[in-house]
Each structure stands twice: as C-alpha cells, then as structure tokens.
C-alpha cells in the first residue's frame, strides 16, 4: 500500500543538487554565513588546542612566550573567564547563523510554492518534499562546514606560527585539530539541518491547489 508512489533516493539527490546548482548564488549567501560561523568555531577551538599542545611540549621558550602574552600557564580564574566569554561568543555566532538559515530557507519555500504544488499534483507525497529540502540543506551544510573548518584551521595554525615562531609548527597537535575540525563540520551540517526543519514542514503542508492559483 505504501509503495504506491515512490521517489528513489538517487532521484531526490539529483533534484536537490540541481536546485542548488541553479540557485547557486542565492544559496551561497546562507552558506557564507555558515562558513564564517564554523570557521570562527574551529579557529577558537583549534587555537585552544594549539596552546595546550605547546604547553604539553614543556619547551621553556614557549612557556615564556605564553606567559608574556598573558596566558596563564597553570589553570586559574582568568583562564576560565576568558574561555566562558569565548564560548558565549561562539554560541552567539552559531545562533545568528541558524536564524539566517531558517530565514533563507523559508524564503526559498515561499518562492517555490508553485513548484511544490506542481510536484504534489504529479503525485508526490508530503515526505518527498521534506526529503528534497533536507537533502539540499545537508549538502549546503556539509559543503559550508568543510570549507569553514578548513578556513578556521588554517587561520589558527598561521596565527600560532606568526605568534610563536616557525619552530612551534612541529608541536602542532594534528590529531586534536583533526578531531576539532571533524566536530566543526558536524556542527555546521547539524545547524543547516536544524534551520531547514521548520521550513520543510511548511513546504510539505502546502496544498496543491496553491499551484493552480494565478495571481491576477
């Protein structure tokens, strides 16, 4: 009974990819904000990872440098305050990003009301529509997340090299940075999916008769 109409997964991917490709510049705007937010997240986190990695190296030259720039070598109150502030800023930037994504996706749904209504007239179930929107958002989130993570990591690494000299490059904790980048990509994709949830539900509830309505 449930197999009366079907949309194969490969076809949904194809439709989602085509939608993004044709509306490339518009989806670029949301993706840019996602890239920047994820880059910021990666930058702060990777920065922390790098300083910790340098500390763990126990090289006296670095410890002196770190103390000079005000980074407390032993954990203390000032460090906690700084990291709390950091966390707030990162959280706010991610929040702004999600709000931007929700807005952009809602606009996209409103713009495509005729397309959605037509697809339903051709026999699409509500969940096909949701599926297409979710795949689109996942693709944008993944692309934005990967670019953002790479950007953030690069900036963090270059910043530490500039600050601590070329010698510090050998102490960079690559595996920790890798893990950070991975979590950042997941966050980016997750945010994108979170932002598309409400608009996708709105799109699926749209009546096919909307497609018929002609604006006089």
């Amino acid at each position, binding site marked *: 009974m449930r197999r009366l*109409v079907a949309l194969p997964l490969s076809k949904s991917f194809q439709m989602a990819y085509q939608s993004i490709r044709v509306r490339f510049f518009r989806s670029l705007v949301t993706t840019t904000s996602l890239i920047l937010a994820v880059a910021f997240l990666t930058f702060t986190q990777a920065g922390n990872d790098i300083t910790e990695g340098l500390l763990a190296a126990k090289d006296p030259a670095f410890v002196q440098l770190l103390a000079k720039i005000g980074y407390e070598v032993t954990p203390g109150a000032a460090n906690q305050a700084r990291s709390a502030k950091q966390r707030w800023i990162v959280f706010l930037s991610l929040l702004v990003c999600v709000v931007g994504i929700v807005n952009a996706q809602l606009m996209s749904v409103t713009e495509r009301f005729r397309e959605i209504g037509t697809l339903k007239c051709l026999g699409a179930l509500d969940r096909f529509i949701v599926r297409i929107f979710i795949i689109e958002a996942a693709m944008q989130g993944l692309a934005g997340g990967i670019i953002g993570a790479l950007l953030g990591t690069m900036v963090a690494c270059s910043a530490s090299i500039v600050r601590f000299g070329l010698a510090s490059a050998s102490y960079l904790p690559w595996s920790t940075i890798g893990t950070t980048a991975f979590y950042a990509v997941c966050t980016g994709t997750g945010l994108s999916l979170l932002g598309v949830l409400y608009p996708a539900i709105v799109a699926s509830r749209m009546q096919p*008769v909307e497609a*018929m309505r002609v604006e006089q």
Partner: protein
Amino acid sequence: MTATKKIVRVTGVTKNFDLGKIVVNVLKGIDLEIEEGKYISIMGPSGSGKSTLFNMIGGLDKPTSGKVFIDEVDIAQLDAYELAWLRCRKIGYIFQTFNLIPVMTALENITIPMTFAGVSNDDALRRGMELLDQVGLTGRHAHRPSELSGGQQQRVAVARALANSPAIILADEPTGNLDLTTGEDIIRLLKELSLRRKVTVISATHDYKMLNVSDQVVWIRDGHVDKIQQREELDIKTGGLESATH
C-alpha cells in the same frame, strides 16, 4: 444504447468558503456526469465557480457537501497515499501558468511523473523522448523552461500530463497565457492526442476556440450548471457565439 462508462460523476456538490466574517457560497449544487473519452469544456464567466468545480473534480479540494466519483471511487474517502496515486496515474494536469519545474530540463520535467510511478530510468527516458516527438519538440529535450517559448512550455506540460497514460486530463485555462495561433495549436494538439490515446479531456476555460473541438460544453453560471450543450447544438458564428449572449 450502450451505456458508456461515466468516468467522472459529481452529485450534489456544494462548496462554501469561510472567509471569517462572510461565507461565500461558490458552488450551490452541481450534478454532472462525464463520459469516458469525451472532450468536455467547462465554461463560465469569472467568479462563476468554474475553477472551484475544476478543483473538486481534480481532487485538489474537498466539497462541503456532495460527492465526487472518479471511476466510481469516492475521492473524499481516499487517504494521502491513494490520492497521490490518483494524481500520479489517473489524472494529468495542465495549468494556465504551465508550471514546469524551472531547474529541470524538458525531458526531466516529463519524466517526473514516471519516476513517481516507479518506472525505471531507461524506460522513462525512452518514453519521454517519444512524448516529446509526439508534441513536436524533438531536439529540445535538454532545454530548460526558461529557454522555451510559452507555446513550447505548454507542449511540454501536455507531454508531462500524458506521461503515465492517464484516464483523464484536466486543463485549467490551457490557452490563457498564449496568443491566438499558439492557443489554437495547443487545442489542436490536445484534441489529436486525446483521440489517439482515448483520454477524457476536461478543460475549464474562457476561450471560445475550445468550442470547435469539444464534444460537450457545460456552462456554469453563479454556482449552478446553467446548461449542457452537446456538439451538435453548438451554433458557432464567426466573431462570437450565439448562445453566449443568452
């Protein structure tokens, strides 16, 4: 007299729209029977309830009271899956605004209903190309709607409506956005294909050019069926329609 199958049966349908303070009674009791294989035009002035009746027949809206039977199945009783199946396999839609998916090529637009119906990709592409040939757009398969003229877009829409060989084609003002000659082409195309494939065509229209090809004309006025004219009764004079003034 052989009883031809009644593919669409509308009994006592009324429709009221609740607009907050006022209730608009758009359809005030429609009874209609449409035989299989005929070309029906539903005509009426603006605001007569033509489009609302059309939406009822097409399963896009539910009547306030009364029943609509498509192939003797009461469509109000269908759940979402069965309704989707109906729209996919049994009914083909043609819109005034063409309603092609702008991000897809002509061929992809035509094969969407086939994908929903579970047809394999190769079969879908083959049938899609055949349909494009039948509507006279060979060679335009890779073009997007933005690269096609209005008449060509409507031809793609006609091909799409025929994708799953439906029993009924519903056309809502198919020539509304087209000029005179292109409109005539589309009407001729619809008539040809409907004869060849034995499809029932129901079109809601203002366009008097439709009358030449219709087997039956249903006049709607003010939410009621004013009169139903068979082909023989239509008296068409150039420059106007005799019965339209009554």
